């Protein structure tokens, strides 16, 4: 965790806040937290397929499951790791083993204590084979030294920032051994009423409407959570979320809950604030994916040509109303540790795109070069418009486009299970650490049929696998950064999947909701510290 200073951090977030135009002051009020009340929250997407999806499953189940499950660590807004379920995590000198000290007196929602056995189970039966996948390939064994100490052993040296990021990331949720042992974790029906150590217990999930969580009274952090009840409710479209805000039915919404033109209007009432903090460890992008199982898109020149055909400023200015900016390379510019500008860029140039397509062997024949099926994942309102825009952009270079904008479930199936698309528009959010969330879109072992938000393009380049392999074991932080730059350059040139725009997400909250957006990935935090000033 060296090589990243507080100043770097301040520069990135200050920039984000200034750029947003509203410097929300959610946390500026210094007063003692009040207990009680019901907090109603949502996010700018739909209901999850299950409250907890062990293998990932996207942001929606991540949002709900993180209120119930906790991780060993969390990343604060100034990008420091802070203990949650672990008090301390220390690498050995050769970085081949790490000693984890667990927090004492932590209980699961059913009253059983959290022990080193749980952690060994998580490491070997959950993280390694399911949630982290290849990321923890090097994990050889986990051993409980005493009831609160576990040693993780690795085949190769493992960088500290990497391991801590994994443990504090989406894959690091700690699940109970006594519930899951001996069952298939992925299909266990308890995933719809998960039992964790977190501040909130699942009370009831009313499908199609909301999930109600109640306070876990025996929570290890005495006094927390501050609210008695947390309700996560889903609305189908942004306009009804802003109506819900105004009607007093909604307190806080993360990740662009309302239409961009409505933001200024709601802020104007002084009853709401817009907050851009809390997203640095989950940088959102909208990307375009090229299915390389199809002969045409297997050609790198075709992919590059199509990148030139897209006017990404139009997408960020018109479709996102300025709440996004064109991406450079595979890494979002908000990633202050690893971002580099020094990669192949694809400025909007229709003539060049046409020339490249001619050269690639696809000249215009009777009005069309070829036919393409374009699948734009319908989970965000903006994707509908991006799909419609891309259809036109590709038609401008004489490609016949058949557009489909399926609902969430069908989109996941078509893009990540059936690979039934030529070009797809999808989203993902990546952490500061690029392994595995970003790299698994590019590596060969990221191809897992049916696993959402991974390599769905079928791209496989030994050189790429080698670079990512090196990134995984490089313990020197500086050398690691230059390896990442190598990765980014290759990703940008090969362009199997590339971000079109980096999103600048915003959280909307009533001004009496306090202490939100204090962590680097607020949407995926437990929300124990949030309180209502009523």
């Amino acid at each position, binding site marked *: 965790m060296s090589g990243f200073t507080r100043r770097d951090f301040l520069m990135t977030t200050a920039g984000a806040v200034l750029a947003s135009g509203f410097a929300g002051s959610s946390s500026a009020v210094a007063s003692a937290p009040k207990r009680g009340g019901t907090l109603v929250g949502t996010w700018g997407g739909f209901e999850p397929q299950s409250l907890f999806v062990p293998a990932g499953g996207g942001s929606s189940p991540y949002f709900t499951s993180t209120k119930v499950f906790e991780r060993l660590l969390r990343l604060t807004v100034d990008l420091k790791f802070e203990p949650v379920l672990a008090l301390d995590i220390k690498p050995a000198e050769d970085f081949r083993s790490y000693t984890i000290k667990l927090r004492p007196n932590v209980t699961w929602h059913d009253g059983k204590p959290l022990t080193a056995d749980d952690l060994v189970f998580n490491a070997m039966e959950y993280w390694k084979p399911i949630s982290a996948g290849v990321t923890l390939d090097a994990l050889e064994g986990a051993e409980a030294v005493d009831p609160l100490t576990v040693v993780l052993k690795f085949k190769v040296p493992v960088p500290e920032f990497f391991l801590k990021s994994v443990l504090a990331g989406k894959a690091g949720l700690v699940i109970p051994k006594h519930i899951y042992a001996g069952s298939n974790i992925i299909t266990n029906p308890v995933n719809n009423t998960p039992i964790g150590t977190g501040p909130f217990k699942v009370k009831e999930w009313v499908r199609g409407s909301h999930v109600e969580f109640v306070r876990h009274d025996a929570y290890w952090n005495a006094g927390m959570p501050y609210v008695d009840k947390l309700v996560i409710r889903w609305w189908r479209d942004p306009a009804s979320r802003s109506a819900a805000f105004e009607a007093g039915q909604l307190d806080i919404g993360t990740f662009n809950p309302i239409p961009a033109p409505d933001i200024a209007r709601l802020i104007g009432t002084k009853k709401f604030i817009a907050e851009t903090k809390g997203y640095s460890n989950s940088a959102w992008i909208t990307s375009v994916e090229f299915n390389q199982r199809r002969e045409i898109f297997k050609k790198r020149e075709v992919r590059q040509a199509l990148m030139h055909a897209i006017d990404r400023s139009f997408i960020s200015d018109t479709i996102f109303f300025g709440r996004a900016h064109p991406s450079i390379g595979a890494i979002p510019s908000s990633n202050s540790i690893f971002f580099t500008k020094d990669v192949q860029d694809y400025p909007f140039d229709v003539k060049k795109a046409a020339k490249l397509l001619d050269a690639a062997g696809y000249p215009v024949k009777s009005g069309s070069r070829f036919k393409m099926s374009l699948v734009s994942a319908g989970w965000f309102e903006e994707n*509908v418009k991006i799909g419609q825009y891309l*259809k036109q952009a590709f038609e401008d270079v004489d490609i016949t486009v058949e557009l489909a904008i399926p609902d969430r479930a069908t989109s996941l199936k078509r893009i990540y299970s059936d690979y039934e698309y030529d070009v797809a528009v999808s989203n993902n959010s990546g952490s500061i650490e690029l392994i595995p969330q970003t790299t698994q879109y590019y590596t060969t072992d990221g191809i897992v049929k049916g696993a959402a938000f991974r390599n769905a393009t079928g791209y496989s380049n030994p050189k790429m696998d080698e670079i990512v392999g090196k990134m995984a074991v490089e313990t020197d932080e500086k050398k690691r950064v230059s390896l990442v730059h190598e990765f980014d350059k290759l990703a940008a040139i090969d362009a199997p999947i590339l971000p079109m725009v980096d999103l600048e997400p915003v959280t909307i909250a009533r001004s009496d909701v306090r202490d939100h957006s204090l962590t680097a990935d607020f949407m995926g935090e437990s929300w124990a510290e949030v309180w209502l000033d009523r």
Partner: protein
Amino acid sequence: MIALFIDFARRFARNRAALVGLFLVLVVIGVAIAAPWWFPRNPLRIVGRPEIWPFVSPRYPLGTDSLGRDIAAMTAYGARTTLLIGLCASLTATIIGITVGATAAYVGGWVDELLMRMTELFQTIPNLIFVLTIVSILGQKIEYVTIAVGVVTWTPIARLTRAEFMSLRDREFVQACRAMGMGSLRIMFGEILPNALPPVIVLSSLVVAGAVLFESAVAFLGLGDPNVTSWGQLIGDGRTLIRSSWYICAVPGLAIMLTVLALNLVGDGLNDALNPKLRDR
């Protein structure tokens, strides 16, 4: 024959509201036919600045939507989609409905039982949900939307046809046909159907209006065919901007309202003209 038609037209015209309805329907049909001449380019093209209000720019008389597409062009082309789906769905429903209803009434017995129970089965499923289910299974294509709407709206036609057939099948003229040795199919479709048809036609015209509404609902929910414009889709796309640029929803909304109203008025007029019991009331 001509005298019959004149008689029909006279009775239809007696209902002033029906004339207004007919006029509006003809206008919509005219717009649908003329759309490619008025707006030669693809209506889904982005042509200008987003969110230009109506009557501001002479180039975009009805303004532009959130992406900068010409609402006038989209509405004109939307009329084609809407009418096409409405007519085809109504035709599908009428064909299914008449076949089922006529067979059930004429054959009777267990065939009648079976067909009517099947009709009831279809009737008990909420229409919109059934349409959405069919569309999400078959896919977001305009053909599938048409089929889906047709499949859910045939039941009233089947029941009406059956009732008409029941009252006609034992009349003297039918018995005379039987006595002459006419085949069942010929009796059903050559002799009974023309007599049973007038109320069915009235109902079919109302099914067109219903189909227009179904198509709009499907497109509004984002399950329509994204490769063609339709009024419902335009409303669906514009709904996030309803607080700032409400005209995006209002223009196609008005189009749907007027078309459905006009179709209903025409249906009333047809009822007056075709229903002999109301003659000279």
